[in-house]
């Protein structure tokens, strides 16, 4: 059943953005062709990645060895069901975010757009490489590459706020990277291998329990990218400067925030964490060590507190950032349950949350570009000016709360089943409470946008409502992608197996237990 098939496909899939990057640089004088290159690369990459799914669904693995440096340092790709879920998500969303970036960057007449697209391609390259890594060394190297390539995206504005925020970003993520390195070396020293395996590789090692717990703590500290509390504060700061000189000066451009939250950095963090729990430690070993409960507790605290922090934020992007912190802990939470349903829920939450959160961020960006509004309290009546955008936002918000008919319901359903399967009813209460809090911080936005009357606009425009989002053709580059991501969030509810996502998750769980 589980056969390893050497194949060039993983390399081809990963290399697409890497080939596109120099192209983007060379074509910097021709903006249209440059952006065309990005989109072409993204489409090809997605096609290659999705074409690997059938082979994986039959129970095989595709492998590609890049180089064996020696002494256990080897680079290689190995496509399995779980990695493919993440790869499909990131490559598909790259297409849409690239389209969106065209509208966003050009509308705002941003500087250094070539560097932006270049680094974006590198970030996607790193993210997909992380998804398809065969072993911890490859994983670690691309994890660090992801930090460095997104650094320039977050620091895009190159002003005081941007550098202040990115310093925090780098300090957190680089230290985290070094902890990960320590963990990788310790794993290698104990087991003599760094390759991921379905049952875990530490199970058969002759290490004492306390060493393994130290190792787990190292891995957890190495996963600060997952923004678990109390190591989360880099994430909101990277979105919007916390104590700005100008009121809520924006740090990262919005498509970057979308990328960070839905596809690359934070997602790679949780992805890596699930990888480590399932394929390095192994479910059984985690159970024996009794780590599951601790992990569940940390995740629960992050879920609840993240939601509370979100309620207190008036800036839309910061609120979304705290929402991400809370939502990603669902994934950690699902893994901590150590039950098949919980892990399945965690795995499908990676793509589903990606689609929903990217919708929300793209909407926030579109609102900012079109109306210039960043604070939720200013957004009265936006729903009438930008109906499509706010409709998409509502769909995303519904999904976040776990309400049908949006895909968020599916992952929460599995997570709920997981808690019951694990026999931990207290965790079921946590998940319900957290969903309730999601409603508390999302629905005021929807209500303000659709039902509140703006104080000043009606007078200035002679009482007429203008459909701002259709005013410039350029805006369509933003509106269409965000409508599509919202649409997909609904499609995944009715057909969770679109893009083979559910099938892959079932496959991954089957291999684990």
């Amino acid at each position, binding site marked *: 059943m589980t056969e390893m098939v050497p194949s060039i496909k993983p390399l081809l899939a990963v290399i697409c953005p890497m080939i596109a990057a120099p192209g983007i640089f060379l074509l910097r004088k021709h903006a249209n062709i440059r952006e065309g290159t990005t989109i072409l690369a993204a489409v090809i990459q997605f096609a290659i990645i999705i074409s690997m799914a059938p082979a994986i669904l039959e129970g095989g693995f595709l492998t590609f060895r890049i180089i064996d*440096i*020696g*002494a256990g340092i080897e680079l290689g790709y190995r496509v399995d069901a779980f990695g493919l879920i993440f790869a499909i998500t990131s490559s598909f969303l790259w297409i849409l975010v690239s389209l969106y970036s065209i509208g966003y960057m050009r509308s705002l007449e941003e500087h250094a757009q070539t560097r932006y697209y270049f680094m974006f391609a590198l970030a996607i390259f790193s993210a997909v490489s992380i998804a398809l890594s065969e072993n911890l060394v490859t994983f670690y190297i691309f994890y660090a590459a992801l930090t460095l390539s997104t650094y320039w995206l977050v620091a895009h504005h190159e002003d005081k706020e941007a550098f202040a925020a990115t310093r925090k970003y780098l300090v957190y993520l680089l230290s985290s990277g070094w902890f990960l390195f*320590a963990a990788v070396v310790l794993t290698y*020293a104990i087991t003599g291998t760094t390759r991921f395996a379905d049952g875990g590789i530490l199970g058969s090692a002759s290490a004492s329990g306390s060493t393994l717990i130290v190792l787990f703590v190292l891995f957890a500290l190495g996963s600060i990218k997952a923004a678990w509390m109390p190591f989360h504060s880099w994430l909101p700061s990277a979105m919007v400067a916390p104590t700005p000189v100008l009121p809520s000066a924006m740090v990262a451009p919005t498509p970057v925030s979308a990328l960070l939250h839905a596809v690359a950095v934070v997602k790679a963090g949780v992805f890596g964490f699930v990888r480590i729990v399932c394929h390095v430690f192994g479910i059984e070993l985690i159970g024996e060590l009794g780590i599951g409960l601790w992990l569940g507790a940390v995740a629960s605290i992050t879920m609840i507190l993240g939601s509370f922090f979100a309620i207190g934020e008036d800036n839309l992007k910061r609120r979304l950032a705290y929402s991400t912190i809370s939502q990603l802990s669902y994934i950690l939470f699902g893994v901590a349950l150590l039950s098949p349903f919980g892990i399945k829920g965690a795995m499908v939450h990676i793509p589903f949350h990606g689609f929903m959160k990217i919708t929300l961020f793209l909407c926030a960006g579109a609102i900012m570009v079109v109306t210039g509004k960043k604070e939720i309290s200013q957004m009265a009546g936006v729903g009438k000016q930008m109906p499509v955008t706010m409709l998409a936002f509502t769909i995303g918000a519904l999904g976040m709360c776990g309400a049908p008919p949006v895909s968020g319901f599916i992952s929460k359903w599995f997570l709920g089943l997981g808690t019951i399967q694990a026999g931990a009813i207290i965790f079921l209460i946590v998940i319900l409470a957290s969903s309730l809090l999601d409603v508390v911080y999302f629905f005021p936005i929807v209500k303000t946008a659709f039902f509140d009357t703006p104080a000043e606009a009606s007078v200035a425009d002679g009482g007429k409502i203008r459909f701002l989002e259709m005013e410039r053709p350029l805006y369509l580059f933003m509106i269409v992608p965000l409508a599509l991501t919202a649409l997909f969030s609904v499609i995944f509810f009715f057909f969770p197996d679109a893009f083979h996502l559910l099938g892959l998750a079932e496959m991954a769980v089957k291999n684990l237990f």
Partner: protein
Amino acid sequence: MMHYILLQIVAVPLVASWAAFLIRPRKNRRPAWIAVAALCYTMLLLVLAGLQIYEGKILHEQYVIGPQVSFNLLADGLSLPVALIINLICLALALYSIHYVEHRIELIYGDIDDKTYGIYYRRFFMLYLYFPTGFMGVAFATNTLAVYFFLELLTIIPLYFIMAQFGYSDFITRYKVALMCLYWGIAGATFFLIGIIWGYIQIGSFEIGQIHNLSGNPFVLWIAVVILVGLATKLAIIPLHVWMPWVHAEHPTCIAGLLAIYANIAAYVAVRVLILPLRLDLYPLSLPLMIFALLTMVYGALLTLAQTDAKRFCACSTISQISYSVFGIAAMTAWGIQGGMFYFLSHILGKAILFSTAGILVYQLETRNLKNMGGLWPRMPLTAVLWLSASLILSALPPTSGFVGKWLLFTGAFKGFNSNPLGLLVTIAAIMSTLLTLVYTFLTGIRIFFGQQKTHDLEHPATDPPLTMSLPLLALAGVAFAMGIFPKPLLRLLDSVIGTF
């Protein structure tokens, strides 16, 4: 050519040094080319010897000097790579010195007639050639007395005289610092000597091959401690690091890279003389040494962060970097020792590049103050690339040799101590402290090459240096990258000696 190959490698630079003396002192570069030619020749010999050793042979040459006294040279999988890389750096820095020394002489001695100029120029290269002899001697020597002799040779002749005559400060300070270096060097070597004589009293031999007979001796730990104190002085381990920033700041930059070797080669001596023969007896020293190494790593890195002088910056970084290899060696596992040796080679390559790039900056900008540098990237792209590669190597990022070294040595440390809580914590702390290297190399690099242009810089617009300065350094960087991607041959050589004990 294949006869007396090791003897030639040790002696040819010395012969060339005396040959340079025969050149009439004029304003030309002949002495430099003699040095380069001699080093090219020894480089060739080393490669030939290396090919033989790679096939599994061990080169052993014996020269009887008198009754009971013989001078032996041994090249195996450990000493050869060390000698090869060091010789390569010596060659690269000889090329680099061609222009640099001219600049130094002009700065120090000002307007002098051609003959005096020629004398100084010739003197530098004559002294310079003692470096390769000393290093090769330490690498190939088979008895501790010879090791002592070559270490002293390095301390007294090239280090003292070059620093005294071509150093940076005024006349008095220069000699003071040179003397300070000499005293520290001799003090360290004396501890080493006391240790080996004590060992001789116990087993009746200075041969490294006989040291394993000390095993089980009641004094073995004390002998080891005395020798280690001597070596720690060279390695600049806390609290014996005092001389290092002074000396490094004083040296002409073209040999500062060799000074890093001078300090770090003591790690090789420690492996040869103590760790390989007496590993099991020295086990109690393992954890204390690791802790000292950790302290030095952190302290050295913090010291580096505080520097504003381009040369002291590199010096303090050496203090920290050497302790990486000491850390690996102190773990006393096969992986740790291999990693320590690998990191030693990686560090001297990276440090030679970093120092010499700092030297290029000093040479072109005529200031040592890092605060006077900024925004140099557009005008000195090659220099920026050199700084970047040195930063990558020293920060041990893939795909450089540093990464492989760091990987090996920390794996070694974890293998030895994964069930010892203190050892585990010390190793994790050591890994975290390597982050500081990344901070200080890249932060300084960004300040020098990006950001605002400084007024000082606008008054003296600088460009990339002549190619004889930058190309050898680029070649060194190439070697370090190749070692990072294809370390297997080197690992096989190291393994043939270290992996089997």
